[in-house]
């Protein structure tokens, strides 16, 4: 194998704000190293999930190993991890960083430094990575390389000459970038004669092979036939197979120190392979695991229920398998009065929720209903006992509550100065408390706010984008808890509470929330045989209502010999359509309604 000695290996990832061109740059690297002849009409080749291709964004980190013959005469192994840019998937980024020595920091020269650029730089520095600053999209007429370069210099303290320029679209500057990368990013460090230690940075479940772990070998050698153990569980496995991550998995004899690749440990149980865990050699164990990852903190919680009660077990299996591939997903069983048996899940954000739901539905052929998402609250009762409530149904009676605290975030909004006024107004509406403003340069202000998390999970990002014509970006981190006045708002359909639609909401916002949900539901619930009364209530006080009138006619006019087949097919189609409906009492609600009521128009 060319350059298999560690000093010929470069492990790096590409980090950037969303849409700055990471996956497109990865395409050029695949071509330049010859792993792929030509990307052709499948741009962002590494985005191989259907969902990624449909939405045009990266959801998962993707690792790929390339051989490269450098003009200096040497052969190298370039192990690249393409990462997602959306804030909901920053956990994917930190997992990738831990497996690398360096990162290409990519900045769209027409957009400049944005919120996730800053956030990802801080993350990379936490992991002590060497940064290679690169400006992208220099082919665009709207590119402002000078301004962008200066912003990068100010952000990471490099010299202006170190900032490279490329067009990932056209390939300009890519060979130079690869050469610079080999020079700048250090090879994996080697502690001589140290036994095996490998970090699991990703995993997936394969129907034929079982659990497969993606690893970075930090020391020693990993090969088939050896007995390994996982630090977190202590369980031992015989290694079935190891190999490299090309576009497909390619079997090899071994994975040496510094390498990235995959291991098939022949795990029977889905839950045993854990991202962040360390693999050791059973014959020569080291006592301490590698530093793992911080457990990701879920931000929003929602119940996921099978639309058909019989699918509960399938959902359980599907969650376990998906968790292998999405370590940030958390779940536990839950029962709902209106939806039956399901799982309360924790997500990193609303997009994450949407993606998880869609992946479960597509990859595991399930039909799911999601409850209205909520943040987690800290409730102290009159006896001083503290509980965390992530499910409105579990809120103790108001008379027992001493104080409710809600999660607070530190938010930073990066924006051109002309939108500062509008953004400040939005932040105030969302109960934000202004902290400071700093200027990256004349074109970039960074506003710092303290805000309740509950105010940003729904549509804050969309609002921000639309009011700044796409230019403002935003990042946040949890900082603590603060007391809040909160009420439980119930939604009633024909007089019955639908627990899956209950939310905990700030008292001042309850009325507007109730009004909005009721109106939205009136739009989403189709007319049916009965009139449907939709109400929003706090305790038992109705604060908003709307009705969906019953329709009076739904029948095919004539039905003779030539109409029977067509009619039956129509009935069958309507029956299928009904499967996407959930009944509450005699009211039928489209499954999408639960999520759709959150979206602003």
């Amino acid at each position, binding site marked *: 194998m060319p350059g298999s000695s560690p000093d010929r290996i470069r492990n790096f990832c590409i980090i950037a704000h969303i849409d700055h061109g990471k996956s497109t740059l990865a395409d050029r690297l695949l071509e330049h190293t010859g792993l792929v002849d030509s990307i052709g009409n499948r741009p962002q080749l590494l985005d191989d999930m259907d969902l990624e291709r449909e939405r045009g964004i990266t959801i998962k980190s993707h690792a790929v190993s390339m051989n490269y013959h450098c003009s200096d005469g040497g052969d190298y192994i370039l192990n690249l991890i393409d990462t997602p840019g959306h804030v909901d998937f920053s956990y994917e980024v930190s997992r990738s960083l831990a497996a690398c020595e360096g990162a290409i920091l990519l900045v769209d020269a027409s957009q400049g430094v944005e919120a996730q650029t800053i956030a990802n730089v801080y993350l990379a520095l936490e992991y002590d990575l060497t940064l290679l600053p690169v400006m992208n999209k220099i082919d665009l007429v709207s590119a402002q390389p000078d301004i962008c370069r200066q912003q990068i210099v100010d952000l990471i303290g490099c010299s202006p000459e170190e900032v490279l320029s490329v067009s990932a679209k056209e390939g300009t500057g890519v060979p130079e970038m690869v050469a610079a990368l080999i020079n700048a990013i250090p090879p994996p460090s080697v502690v001589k004669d140290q036994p095996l230690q490998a970090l699991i940075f990703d995993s997936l479940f394969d129907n034929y092979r079982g659990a497969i772990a993606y690893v970075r070998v930090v020391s020693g050698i990993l090969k088939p036939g050896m007995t390994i153990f996982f630090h977190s569980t202590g369980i031992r496995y015989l290694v079935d197979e190891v190999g490299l991550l090309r576009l497909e998995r390619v079997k090899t004899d071994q994975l040496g120190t510094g390498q990235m690749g995959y291991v098939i440990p022949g795990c029977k149980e889905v839950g045993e392979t854990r991202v962040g865990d360390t693999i050791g050699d059973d014959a020569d164990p080291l006592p301490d695991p590698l530093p793992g990852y911080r457990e990701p903190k879920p931000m929003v919680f929602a119940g996921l229920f099978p639309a058909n009660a019989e699918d509960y077990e399938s959902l359980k299996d599907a969650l376990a398998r998906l968790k292998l591939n999405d370590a940030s997903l958390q779940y536990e069983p839950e029962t709902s009065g209106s939806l039956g048996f399901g799982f309360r899940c924790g997500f990193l954000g609303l997009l994450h929720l949407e993606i998880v739901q869609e992946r479960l539905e597509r990859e595991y052929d399930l039909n799911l209903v999601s409850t209205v998402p909520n943040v987690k609250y800290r409730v102290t009762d009159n006896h001083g006992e503290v509980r965390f409530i992530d499910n409105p149904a579990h809120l103790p009676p108001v008379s027992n509550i001493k104080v409710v605290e809600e999660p607070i975030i530190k938010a930073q909004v990066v924006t051109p100065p002309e939108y500062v006024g509008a953004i400040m107004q939005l932040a105030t509406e969302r109960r934000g408390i202004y902290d400071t403003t700093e200027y990256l340069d004349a074109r970039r202000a960074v506003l710092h706010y303290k805000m309740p998390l509950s105010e940003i999970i729904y549509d804050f990002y969309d609002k921000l984008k639309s009011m700044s014509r796409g230019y403002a970006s935003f990042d946040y981190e949890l900082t603590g808890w603060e007391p809040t006045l909160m009420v439980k708002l119930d939604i009633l359909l024909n007089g019955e509470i639908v627990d899956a639609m209950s939310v905990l909401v700030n008292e001042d916002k309850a009325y507007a929330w109730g009004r909005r949900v009721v109106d939205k539901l009136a739009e989403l619930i189709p007319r049916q045989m009965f009139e449907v009364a939709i109400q929003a209530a706090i305790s038992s006080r109705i604060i908003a209502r709307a009705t969906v009138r019953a329709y009076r006619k739904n029948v095919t006019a004539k039905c003779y*010999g030539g109409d029977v*087949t067509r*009619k039956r097919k129509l009935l069958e189609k309507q029956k299928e359509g009904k499967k996407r409906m959930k009944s509450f009492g005699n009211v039928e609600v489209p499954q999408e309604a639960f999520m759709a009521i959150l979206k602003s128009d």
Partner: protein
Amino acid sequence: MNEFALYFHYPFCLNRCYYCNFTSSVLDESVAERYRQTLIKELLLRSDEPPWKDGTIRSIYIGGGTPSLMPAEYVNKLLLLIRDCFNYPPDIEVTIEANPGAIDAESLSAFHEAGINRISIGAQSLIENELRQLSRIHTSKDIHAAVLAARQAGIYNISLDLMYGFTGQSVNSFTESLNRALELDIKHLSTYALSIEGSTEKLSPPQNSSQPTPDPDLAADQYDALCSIMKKAGFDHYELTNFALSGFQSHHNWTYWRSIPYLGLGVSAHSFDGKNRSWNIPIIDEYNERLERDALPQETVEILSMENVQTEQVYLGLRTSDGLTMTEFEHIINPRELAEMVDSGFLIVSDGTILVPEERWLLLDDIVLKLLSKCDKIA
């Protein structure tokens, strides 16, 4: 096979109505002449084929299109041929559809002599300006004339078609139409709420804004008036869209609702042999060409599963005042939905029969969907 109903399709009209989704085109006499030959050819070919061979006819229906445009001699020839092909008992119901603007006393007499004993007249309305809005080619006077001429010719079993539920119409104008129709001493009435669906949508959605469009809420009000007027007039509401005086229910239509076999001849005609359904190509030229090559003009045979058949039987049965026999369908009916709908008056169960009450018939599609929905295990 012993008994079946026989249907002929005659796909020509003097004018195409914008809301119509029957297979029909504007009359071109040379095409029609050719078609009349191929239609006879299909009759001959089919009558030699199992399962129709040597069968007994229960009823004959000549529909369209506008079959009253058929030359009387042709109708005569057709009915004579049927006698040669099948067992044709005397006194069975033999219906022809007529457009009041495309019929005269002479042909009516000749039809009667040929063996036609029932006529279904496409009146649609008896209000002059509604007829104009619907772009019908006839006036309400033509309707009167057609009814009288039919009776004069000896055809007493007269049915009218009326339309309702379209914009520009009102409850009053519809009851006026109904009363005028009843004054004509008809034996049978079919009523259809205007719907613009299926192929019509693809062809031409109403282009000029004066063309009426469906108004479902108006239709519901008119339907209530319809039911009460017809009851007073002594008519039996025996199927969702059909009313008859005692003894004048359409035999032919019952074959469809009771899943009795039927043989459909002509372009786009459907047949049902008791197990499977099949239908002919819907394009006149292709239909002609095939038969001229002595080939059968079938387009599709649909193999019906047990579940298909039962779904159809539930839907069709509930369209009639006979309803469904509980024991036959118990296994596919959702008992919880049944109980709920009985409670709220959408269904009646009595003497082991399930019925949709007249005042709920307009919601039949929903009722059937609920009834056939899979049982929810958690509830």
